[in-house]
């Protein structure tokens, strides 16, 4: 029963990874920006949740209608003022800019909030759990995080597949020059994508802060897991990102069941193995790979 439990807990943990990773997947898939500050932006979301919930004296969930629009606006501003400018100077510039942003956020947080670990008040949900059978207990909080991840990914997928906005995003991801030529306004479009990415990061940050603790440097660890989930799942595939996150979570918990010391190592080995066997990730179609190869050659 321990193994079944480990797999279930791992899947739920994987949902959290996927929630963090989907914004990273979106920014890379559409704008070709590897946002190295993504994890730090998630942690900023957690700190913002902390500030808002203590100011208002409510559980952090109640602050989400305020927190998510603020995060969305921050994403808009970052894209318009920072990432968009960096993109005009080749592929390396955005990497340097987001790395710099990551360092700045971590240090500013240390100055403003000290390096003490914090947690977010999750209200009654934080401690509640239910039994399925025998030894298997599921935390409502973990389940909520998992279901939220599924809902966010489904929502994004629906937006991308069935709205005019989504069509424009996919067209721009295919070919940004031609997108401009057919009349798509790329700057505002990229800004909304970045806004959504940062809002999902902030939402993930709130779950991180409620489930565990966070400090100004948590973002780096968060980024690595999110990045691995994106790569395992296949770049640009949102459902792949969920599978990637779940694969990471299950590996981590199942190996942790054997020996906790090897849990994170196992996750990184899984990442390395997938990269070796299927460098494009599990869910990247052959067509996408062919096109990527064609672009590389041309």
């Amino acid at each position, binding site marked *: 029963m321990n193994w079944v439990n480990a797999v279930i807990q791992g899947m739920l943990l994987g949902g959290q990874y996927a929630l963090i990773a989907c914004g990273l997947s979106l920014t890379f898939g559409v704008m070709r920006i590897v946002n190295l500050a993504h994890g730090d932006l998630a942690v900023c979301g957690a700190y913002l949740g902390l500030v808002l919930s203590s100011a208002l004296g409510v559980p952090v969930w109640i602050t989400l209608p305020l927190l998510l629009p603020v995060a969305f606006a921050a994403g808009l501003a970052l894209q318009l003022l920072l990432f968009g400018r960096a993109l005009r100077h080749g592929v390396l510039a955005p990497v340097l800019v987001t790395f710099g942003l990551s360092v700045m956020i971590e240090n500013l947080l240390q100055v403003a909030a000290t390096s003490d670990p914090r947690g977010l008040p999750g209200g009654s949900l934080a401690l509640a759990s239910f039994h399925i059978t025998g030894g298997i207990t599921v935390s409502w909080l973990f389940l909520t995080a998992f279901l939220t991840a599924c809902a966010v990914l489904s929502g994004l997928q629906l937006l991308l597949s069935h709205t*005019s906005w989504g*069509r*424009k995003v*996919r*067209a721009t*991801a*295919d*070919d940004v*020059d*031609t*997108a*401009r*030529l*057919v*009349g*798509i*306004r790329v700057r505002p479009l990229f800004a909304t994508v970045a806004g959504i990415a940062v809002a999902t990061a902030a939402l993930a940050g709130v779950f991180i802060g409620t489930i565990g603790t966070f400090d100004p440097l948590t973002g780096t660890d968060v980024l690595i897991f999110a990045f691995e989930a994106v790569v395992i799942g296949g770049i640009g595939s949102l459902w792949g990102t969920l599978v990637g996150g779940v694969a990471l979570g299950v590996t981590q918990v199942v190996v942790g069941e054997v020996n906790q010391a090897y849990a994170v190592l196992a996750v990184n080995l899984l990442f390395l193995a997938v990269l070796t066997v299927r460098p494009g990730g599990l869910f990247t179609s052959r*067509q*996408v790979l062919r*096109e990527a190869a064609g672009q590389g050659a041309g």
Partner: protein
Amino acid sequence: MSEPDVLLEITDLDVFYGDFQALFGVSMSVARGCATALVGANGAGKTTLLRTIAGAQAPSSGFVRYGGSDITAAPPHRRIARGIALVPEGRKLFPSLTVEENIQVGAAAAASPQWPLQRIYDTFPMIARRRRQRASTLSGGEQQAVAIARALAAGPSLLLLDEISLGLAPVVVEGLYETLSGLRSAGATLVLVEQDLRRAMDACDNLVCLLEGRVALAAAVADVTRDQVVAAYFGEGRS
């Protein structure tokens, strides 16, 4: 100074790619309802000129006037909203989008709703059957038809077509040109780049020949012989 029926007027256009100058003081004007063929050897600047009219390339000097107003600095989406649409060289469809989605994206900044999906499908029955397929799975001729359909979806008054016959079977090209003549009789203004001189002269009223980034010849098709055009094409008779 510009006559009332002039839709597009280009004056002294210089265009650079970095240090390389592609166009040198190019001027031309296109009357409303006319078809203009843009001919010239490879590298003569035809594609650059079309892209500059569409707003994809910024000139370092000179003016582009359209419908009486200066659009030299306008971004592509503004030009599309005013009725300029480009069918780019090499088709440039969005490979991961379906045929219908490609056309819908073309309508995103549409100038007018004169080309709803149904009218497009009536004009191009071959792509109506493939509307749910990804654009990358289509044949070359079908892709070219989708590229034209995507430009039409923007409801253009001025349609720029860059080498639509490139790499296609003659019978397919024939079909595309029949569609163009249909568009012409519906009142569209066309500027088209075409390698096949005979076809270009058959399909158009006016002809502009570029040579190494300069206008070598600009005339009504009726006023020039094929030999004169060929001479301009190769730069013969220059001192």
